[in-house]
């Protein structure tokens, strides 16, 4: 029985998170009849897409033992630059090329992060704090600060508004959910079944030991940050596609919420632990809370405090769960040996 409970909880407390999400869903359903509808569900899916992509990047960095706060800056830098280039050149290269160009830009910015962090062994939080302000500063000083509205966007972006499911009352499932899910699955697969993925876990577990078994630590880290940069850019373009505008002031400032979601999802801030499943759940929980406060009738002045309180609640549950988990294996090991 205890063994079963243990399984249900999952390696990174995913089970606990599912329970918290269920509690929140039940509470919200009780608070508002409008909550438990397909409409709300699709809205939740839609609003989780971009944060999920960012969260996956944060997850990768966190597993490797770092914290990245520069991803929103990279995302908007890459997306805005690409869109502006297309607009200025009056040339619409098609959605795929736009994604590719943006991801190359994002990858290059990630490369800079990676080289500085890995080559000089600097604390990631501080480095990315620095590069974040640099990227945003360069974007607004040298690339542009103009809001690009739907009418000026390349047609391939505005035209990408394809719905997989449409329901009465405005609920719909945007087709971008397909690439987003594919990327999530791809990353889950990469983390589990590729040597690169396992190396990221190894580096996060013990960097020196990783070097000693022959992992090319610097190279792996640099590639990791390139990947995370490209991922951020991917999220940036999706943001533009969903929002049908490109605003260079957007996104930056959302980094802490994303990090909170990833940690809620069971990733260890000290590296070496985390899962895509947990991250998905963490993002869903944060979006669930963030996007239904009006619906369940929390007064607007109280909303900031409410989000904070729920965050603390979620992290407390996680912390207590982790504390118990840390005690548990000893007994478990004993049971096994007995």
């Amino acid at each position, binding site marked *: 029985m205890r063994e079963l409970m243990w399984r249900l909880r999952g390696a990174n407390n995913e089970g606990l998170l599912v329970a918290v999400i269920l509690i929140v869903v039940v509470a919200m359903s009780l608070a508002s009849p409008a909550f438990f509808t397909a409409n709300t569900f699709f809205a939740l899916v839609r609003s989780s897409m971009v944060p999920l992509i960012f969260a996956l990047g944060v997850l990768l960095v966190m597993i490797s033992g770092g*914290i990245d706060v520069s991803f929103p800056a990279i995302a908007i830098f890459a997306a805005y630059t690409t869109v502006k280039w297309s607009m200025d050149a009056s040339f619409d290269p098609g959605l795929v090329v736009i994604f590719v160009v943006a991801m190359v830009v994002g990858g290059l910015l990630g490369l800079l992060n990676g080289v*500085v962090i890995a080559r*000089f*062994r*600097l*604390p990631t*939080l*501080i*480095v990315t*704090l*620095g*590069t*974040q*302000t*640099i990227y*945003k*500063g*360069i974007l*607004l*000083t040298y690339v542009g600060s103009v809001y690009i509205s739907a009418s000026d966007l390349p047609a391939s972006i505005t035209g990408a508004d394809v719905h997989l499911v449409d329901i009465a009352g405005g609920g719909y499932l945007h087709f971008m959910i397909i690439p987003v899910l594919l990327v999530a699955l791809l990353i889950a697969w990469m983390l589990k079944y590729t040597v690169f993925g396992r190396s990221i876990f190894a580096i996060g577990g013990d960097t020196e030991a990783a070097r000693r078994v022959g992992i090319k630590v610097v190279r792996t880290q640099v590639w990791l940050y390139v990947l995370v940069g490209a991922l951020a850019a991917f999220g940036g373009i999706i943001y533009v596609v969903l929002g049908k505008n490109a605003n260079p002031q957007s996104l930056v400032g959302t980094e*802490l919420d994303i*990090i*909170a979601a990833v*940690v809620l999802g069971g990733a260890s*801030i000290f590296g070496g632990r985390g899962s895509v499943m947990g991250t998905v759940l963490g993002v869903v929980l944060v979006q669930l809370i963030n996007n239904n406060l009006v619906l369940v009738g929390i007064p607007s*002045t*109280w*909303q*900031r*405090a*409410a*989000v*904070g*309180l729920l*965050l*603390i609640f979620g*992290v*407390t549950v996680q*912390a*207590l769960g982790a*504390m118990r988990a840390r005690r548990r294996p000893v007994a478990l090991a004993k049971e096994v040996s007995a």
Partner: protein
Amino acid sequence: MNNENRNGLAEMNGRVGAAWTSLLERIHVQRGVGRMAFLLIATFAFFAILKPSVFLNPVNLTNIAVAAPEIGLLSLAVMLAMLTGGIDLSVVAIANGTAVTVSSLYTAIAAAQGEAQAEAMTPVIIFAGILVGAALGAINGVLISIVGITPILATLGTMQVFNGLALVWTGGVTISGAPSALTAMGDTAIAGIPVLMIILIVAAAVVALVINRTPIGRKIQLQGANPVASRFSGISARATLMVTYLMSGLLAAIAGLLFLSRNPSASADYGSSYVLLVIVIAVLGGTNPNGGFATVMGVVLATLTLQVLSSGFTAMRLSAYEYAIAQGVILVGVMVLDQVKFTRRRRTKSPNPTEDHTAVVQSNSL
């Protein structure tokens, strides 16, 4: 080889090695201070030469001295948290909590019983404000030390909660009014040095004294240096972390009073751009974000440097984004240079200065 000889050799070898590491350690200790002093002088000289009329204008110098203290206090608060290996994102929210408390108490009393009565109650009002700051710090302390939440998440949550509560309390409106003692403090200078700057210097001295010269201060450093070894040394992580975040809250509370003394109004959103700035300052000042190491002097100098830089950029008519770029480049650049210098030093051989026992003990932080 006879015994004597061997021992002599070993001792020599050991001595050289240890003298070297202690030298290294002191370079490390003074790294934050030395490089920040250099950077401060360099930036100052740079702008003073380029724009002497504007930059050396006493008004400008006074401005720097008046604007820096609130940021400096918040940076010290973050530095304390970093010293234990944590971080405090809620310092600005705590400062606003204090400012809002003081301002709303003052205006409430002034409205009910007249301005004179409110002025007379200034000490009580200020005390209440500081108490609020300490209480908010204590909430962080409880979440981190007793509940066991990672500091960055605990304070991310409390930042939003404290900020949200201030928003609820004020209804989003900026409250105008503060005890005139506070505003007078913001206007006054002693021997040409603004009182606010003196407050920062005194606070910094007290923090330095606490972390270097008191049992709890040493425990804070040890906690950051190796939490497991501290536990195995009988140091209570709970008590230590609690005191750390309480002190962090107190420093933030004083910063909140400084907000009011510069401008007698309080809002839930003041200083939101400080949150990341103060982390940058703490790290530039030589604080190890992983804990165990920090210099108060370095942090104060880093505060002044960034203030000089910002004011210099305005004097040069450069934009806020160009300043942001410069800030990022300096942060990353200083860390990279540091690392390059440090590894190069480690590779080259050193002279072997022989050390006097007691002198080193004295120069050490104990």
